[in-house]
């Protein structure tokens, strides 16, 4: 297995040979390397079951959770390449600085519930929250943020772009049956929804199979258009070649 070793100053892939057992995942191999060959190999993980979203990396170029990547997915004998997520600044080895995401999270207008029933509880029908529950499955692995070209290829866009994870979050808020806030302005001006040109790369990598583009982004775009049609932004989009 070829694993990236290095920090912000530089680094290189280093080759490790590890005997595998039945059922192993990439993260198991990384742990074996730590225990026997490179004690200080830096990696994040927690649940080892695809629930916490800590162990994101790029395995053979594909962004995925290392704890859910079975070794038998890869042809035996061929080297497997494990690299850190590219979009975020490298801290060390496989660990990146994902604080961008936590900064965006702080700016999102909070849930603003309407009035509860007289007994103090909410009545919501299952069919009205199915979509919201889909969005709440997000484990904040930030793989979608990692593949989105708007920030992957253009880090300078980060201050103006929330990214797919946060479009999912905003869609969850907007579609919450009890929510009363209006976030169209935020979406347009701060979250940079307009930068998204629906390439669907985010949806492809989401380990929770959230249909980020179809179910979150497109409905949000429609909302923004109906709630606030702004010719300046429209013109900007046209001129910059974005849809």
């Amino acid at each position, binding site marked *: 297995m070829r694993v990236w070793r290095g920090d912000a100053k530089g680094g290189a892939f280093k080759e490790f040979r590890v005997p595998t057992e039945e059922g192993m995942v990439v993260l198991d191999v990384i742990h074996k390397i730590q225990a026997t060959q490179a004690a200080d190999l830096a990696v994040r993980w*927690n649940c080892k079951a695809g629930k916490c979203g800590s162990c994101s990396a790029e395995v053979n170029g594909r962004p995925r959770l290392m704890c859910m990547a079975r070794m038998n997915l890869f042809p035996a004998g061929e080297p497997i390449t494990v690299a850190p997520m590219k979009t975020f600044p490298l801290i060390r080895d496989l660990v990146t600085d994902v604080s961008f995401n936590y900064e965006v999270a702080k700016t999102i207008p909070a849930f603003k519930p309407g009035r509860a029933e007289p007994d103090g509880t909410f009545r919501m029908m299952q069919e009205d929250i199915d979509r919201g529950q889909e969005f709440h499955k997000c484990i904040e692995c930030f793989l979608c943020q990692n593949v989105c070209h708007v920030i992957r290829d253009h880090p300078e866009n980060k201050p103006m772009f929330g990214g797919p994870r946060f479009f999912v979050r905003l869609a969850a808020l907007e579609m919450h049956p009890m929510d009363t806030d209006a976030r169209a302005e935020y979406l347009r001006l701060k979250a940079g929804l307009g930068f998204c040109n629906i390439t669907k790369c985010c949806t492809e990598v989401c380990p929770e199979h959230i249909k980020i583009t179809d179910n979150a982004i497109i409905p949000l775009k429609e909302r923004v258009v109906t709630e606030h049609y702004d010719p300046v932004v429209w013109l900007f989009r046209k001129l910059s070649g974005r849809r």
Partner: protein
Amino acid sequence: MALDKHEAHEFDVVVIGAGGAGLRAAIEASAQGAKTALICKSLLGKAHTVMAEGGIAAALGNIYPEDNWKVHFRDTMRGGKLLNNWRMAQLHAQEAPDRVRELEAWGALFDRTADGRILQRDFGGHRYARLAHVGDRTGLEMIRTLQQHAVHKGIDVFMECTITGLLKDGGRVCGAFGYWRESGRFVAFKTKAVVLATGGIGKAWKFSSNSWEYTGDGVTLALDAGAHLIDMECYQFHPTGMVWPPSVRGILVTEGVRGDGGTLKNALGERFMFKYIPDFFRAETADTEEEADRWYTDKKNNRRTPDLLPRDEVARAINAEVKAGRGSPHGGVFLDIASRRDAEYIKRRLPSMYHQFKELADVDITKEPMEVGPTAHYMNGGVRVDADTATTAVPGLFAAGEVAGGLHGANRLGGNSLSDLLVFGRRAGLHAAQYAKNFKGTLTVDAGQVEALARECLEPFERRGGENPYAIHQDLQECMQSLVGIIRTEGELKKALEELTSLRERCRRIKINGNRNFNPAWHLALDLRSLLTVSEAVTRAALERKESRGGHTRDDYPKADPELGKVNVVVRKAGDELTVIREPRPEMPQELKTLLAGDK
């Protein structure tokens, strides 16, 4: 403040731990006007709470209007084999429904009943369907809701920052000291109050549902500061962890599988739990398969299936079946929902179990049974606290969540942890803030204490020895798994103490190479100190309780001893030694005794 050498901060309340308990405590403390910090070893939102699956227990009475706090109280006490702190059990049962509704008001989306209220599911030891849930990812919903609520409350969050020691001014807590994992740089906090919400100790065992974070840091911080532990011997082994393939052994399979109709079978295809109904629960447990199956839909006229006996009972039964040679091919038993519920239902109710088995074990749980066996899961005991205020024996030090003991007695019921986090997290935050507000004296941080902690952290870099922390951790896990596991004997426990001593020796020879930037070997070397301390606490407490009760089973004392049921085993630190004594349990008021004695 004599801290100029290191990064330093000053707060009213410092909350250590950002799982459900820590987040809820921080939200409350800051709502009370306290300047609040929230510190965690991982990124925010990755704490254990995120992994919780089955649900939050609260007597909302949405499915069974007969349910109320009294029934919940009774179930909790009986599940804990009456070793529980009765006042905690009472407050927990009374306040859990409000805490769940509060989560909903903060944006959580629980699964619904047909008339749009919160749906509740069956779980082990709960008389009525009581667990508010979101499929099998309830913890994710809970931590995200709390996290998103907390973000707007002006709490200062310190992520990937590990606390290694508490600072004291005389008898009081006055701060905390630790390091940033990213840079290895030290950071000191001066504060009037500290809330410990650091969770459990499951990484002491080889087969465990817990993550790397569960090294018992909070328990050790508390002991070092002078607080007391109770019920450490009653560690919980969850009956159903994955057993195959080897690399996933221990990963949890939610009790919700049984709550939703799954049943345990041995290699002969027998539903063996019917053979293991203890006298204590006989009157309320179905003794035929027909009654057990009817119970899922008609709870009034039927008794609960033995598949949903409390966890200690089920774990012991599985252990016995495997020992008797009736286990599954990989040393577990079968958990079958495929033959009992249709695929659509299974995928809707248990999506992450479906996914987990499919991806990790090539098993389709809608078509085949799962193979499961016991896995180290939850610290029933922990730091002793005052029920109402969550105060420990040390002024200024509070504790809530899994790190605190008392509520669950000798065995926790499923779902009672998430509700525990909310109820006592809130109380800890509230009382820590009030304590900070009322504290009028001055606190001084002693530079000597800070420097001693800093030196201790750096030792592994400076040594000559050649020990590898990963190897020591592995040996510790082997030791605890084989000698301090589900079934214990005096001889094995004594042997474990000897091994722990030699592991401690080896720890002193750990040598860390490389630098301080995100160096997991160094992090583990530091965490090993707490792992060894908690392992010793569990082992010593287990020696002291010469009976079998709840999570603690002694082969040499297989029965419960009514006299020992009246005491808690208390662990303290005196100098460098851990001391163990028995102390009487607080006496329960008459009206609660009546509740316990009540029907059945």
